[in-house]
């Protein structure tokens, strides 16, 4: 099968899966208990008010009719408006998405790069004190409880030492005084440091361990022995022959991590008050804000599906033995 044919087939598959997910999401939310107004526990809201609100939200119509309207709107690029914010879902997502992408993509890429380099070093020095140190540190990072670690960083670096701000994405005091753009950019970077470090350390562990075990597997391969027999230097064998092949599983993992970074580490976003998609998703689900929650899940589904396709294609690029 040619690559083009493979891509075409994959796109068809992805489209079908996407619509199955869309349909499932739509009905799952409507089957879940409660309604968007059930949380308005306000005795001032009379029965007539509740009926009026339900009618205005379009929830008085049969579920199938709502589904048809939803599909029609979906194809015209209208994801509806949030029950709680009253704003178009697409504009809410567009406002939150860049923050999530910025933080999570950067942390994933940095952690993957550091994980590959350190994993390589660790495997190359298997059994040494350095290997032990790196492996144990990686295990600790991998098993860290995110909110605890995030709060610890905030407590020490933000509160006790006062080096970093206590959450948020910017210092309002600087922004309301009309500071220059470079200063504002530095301010955002300053705020991003602690959440970035939290996610970096959390991801670093798994990438390092993955790279290390993959490298150890590769060392036993015939082509490494051949490379040695050819008289190549250790550095070339390690970097060009072993590491390049061993990095494939890490690449898959990074691809999927990037995709899942859309829903963000909701906990990290919550602790650092990072205004990303993760916090929004949790809020939307717990408040039965159907349009917003559906759109967030659809976005995750779409990104995961596309990321899978890209990883498949990258495999073929990285490993010439794989063809489609």
């Amino acid at each position, binding site marked *: 099968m040619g690559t083009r044919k493979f891509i075409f087939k994959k796109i068809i598959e992805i489209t079908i899966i996407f619509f199955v997910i869309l349909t499932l999401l739509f009905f799952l939310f409507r089957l879940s*208990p*409660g*309604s968007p107004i*059930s*949380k*308005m*526990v*306000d*005795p*001032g*809201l*009379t*029965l007539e*008010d*509740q009926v*009026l609100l339900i*009618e*205005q939200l*379009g929830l008085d119509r049969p579920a199938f009719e709502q589904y048809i309207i939803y599909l029609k709107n979906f194809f015209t690029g209208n994801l509806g*408006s949030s029950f*709680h*914010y*009253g*704003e178009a879902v697409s504009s809410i997502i567009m406002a*939150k998405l860049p923050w999530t992408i910025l933080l999570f993509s950067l942390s994933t890429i940095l952690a993957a790069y*550091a994980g590959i*380099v*350190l994993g390589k*070093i660790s495997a190359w020095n298997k059994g*040494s*004190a*350095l290997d032990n140190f790196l492996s144990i540190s990686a295990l600790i990072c991998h098993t860290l409880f995110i909110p605890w670690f995030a*709060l610890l960083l905030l407590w020490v670096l*933000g*509160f006790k030492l*006062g*080096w*970093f701000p*206590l*959450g*948020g994405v*910017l*210092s*309002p*005091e*600087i*922004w*309301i*005084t009309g500071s220059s753009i470079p200063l504002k950019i*530095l301010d955002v*970077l300053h705020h991003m*440091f602690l959440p970035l470090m939290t996610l970096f350390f959390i991801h670093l562990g798994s990438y390092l361990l993955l790279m290390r075990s993959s490298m150890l597997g590769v060392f036993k391969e015939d082509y490494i022995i051949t490379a040695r027999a050819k008289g190549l230097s250790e*550095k070339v064998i390690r*970097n060009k022959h072993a590491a390049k092949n061993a990095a494939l599983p890490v690449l898959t993992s990074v691809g999927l991590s990037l995709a899942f970074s859309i829903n963000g580490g909701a906990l990290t*976003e919550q*602790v*650092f*008050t*990072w*205004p990303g998609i993760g916090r929004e998703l949790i809020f939307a689900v717990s408040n039965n804000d159907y349009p917003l929650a559906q759109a967030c899940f659809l976005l995750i589904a779409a990104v995961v599906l596309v990321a899978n396709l890209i990883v498949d294609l990258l495999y073929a690029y990285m490993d010439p033995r794989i063809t489609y």
Partner: protein
Amino acid sequence: MLTKAKNLNRNGRSLLIVFLHMFLVILMTGVFFSCQKKEEVKLLKIGLPEEPKSLNLWLGTDSNSRKILSLIYQSLYTRDPKTLEMIPWLAKEEPVFDKEKLTYTVKLRQAKWSDGSEFTSEDVLFTKKFFFDFKIPRYYSKWKIIKKLEAIDEHTIVFHLQAPSAIFLSRVLTAPMVSKKEWGQIAVEAMNAEKPLKFLQDHSIENPLGTGPFTLFEYKKGAYLHMKKNSHFFGTGKTIANHLLGPYVDSILFKIYGTSDVAILALKKGDIDMYWWDIQPGYLEDLKKDPNIEVFLNKKSALYYMGFNVRKPPFDDKALRQSIATIIDKDFILTRILQNYGTPMYSIVPSGNVFWHNPNVRRYGEGLTPEDHIKEAYKILKDAGYTWETEPVDDNGDIVEGKGLKLPSGKVMDKFVILTPPADYDPKRAFAGVMIQEWMRKIGMPVSARPMSFNSLLDTVKGKREFDAFILGYGKLNLDPDYLRPFFHSGYNKPRGWNMSGYTNPVYDKLANEQKGIVESKERKKVIWEMQQILMEDVPYIPLYNPHILEAVSTKNFKGWIEKVNGIGSIWSLCVVKPKN
């Protein structure tokens, strides 16, 4: 070993160097910012637990939106923070009631909107038309008692009522006034929309126009909300409710904190001057040790209660409900679960609401020892014809584990469930459920407490109405006790209705309808007290506790917070709080 150390290749070293540089640059940025931050003395910084959902008055009904909007949109009358009496706010004086004509004449203050235009009778007329045209939830249902609204002159308005109304002042004239300038055009567009109310709610409000002490200056979503002093605020320099009103701060900066832990750190660090949220008692000891923090503890107008499904057996039996009310040890709940930060409740109207609260109702289990709770509860059941396989009190008067409780009909009591919110939503209610389960088991009741997600719980109790008993609460009850009507009047015993227990009592219904029309407070109080007495005799709800509200402020820069029922976080505090120097 040396060779292995050399193996830290260039990649590894360069990675380390890059990270070190990054850390240093960002650290220096921090130091630079710390030097840069010139504290504006009259800038009050307040922490919020969540972002306001909307600045559209008709959609922003969550507590955080309300906090912001309450500083912008004002009503004709409000409550005195100390006496809780209704006092004129946008109105100039007390309304004049004409019994014969059923009219209230209200004189308006010389007030201005934040854009400098006059607030006049026209705006009140517009507000009324707006409520009626769009059937605005929460307001229309109360305003529909108005038959006609008449503007005598620019600052005098007459409300003609359909019938006498007890809640006219406290629930109708406390509605926010809106300006034609802000909403007129939107209203015209909304009326032509397929769903007018939805159109109205979805309309984005960038610059709300109000008459309050502050106006919105800038809202950066996800980051902060900046409000500035309204130079046209009608209260500035006036003494209202014995407070000389400011505002004395130039602006307020609202910052969002995702967790209470971080907000408390920010308060201690001085990043914020106040955290506008109810703090959990667990933080108190730590906060009290800080010399720059002041903690405020105030009563809440709240009700946390256990409700029964009185529509079906066995809870249709009053004696069973009374027995359960007796077995509950409210002092235990107060000391162990609320850690003494609250008050036990014996009536549906909270005790902090001094005027309407009836202290003379039947106070189940008050002052009893743990053993006496069981003995008393046992006695009530036994007198009502309940029997046991093993009675919980033996012939010697000693308490043993009761087993096999049988209803007066001789039928063994079926297993039943107390639904509670989950511990992560509200640990107090969840733990109270578990304790009540244990006490009820001692008397032989086959009960289990089951935590359920809040949405499901409301759906089960209010929508499907398929339940035995539940524990719920209202964190902020209106100070007017008219809620006693929707909570227990048989007319509200419908799916999604507020009478969740399904309580039906014609005598109570009559009183509930009657109180609605009594304008004279003292007369109405008699009826409200009688209603509380009936409720505590029939116990469709067992009032459990009313937690205190705990709030904390930094004392470094500001002083003068006003304490009131429901805490210091209010327009009153923000109108009088002053910089220290």
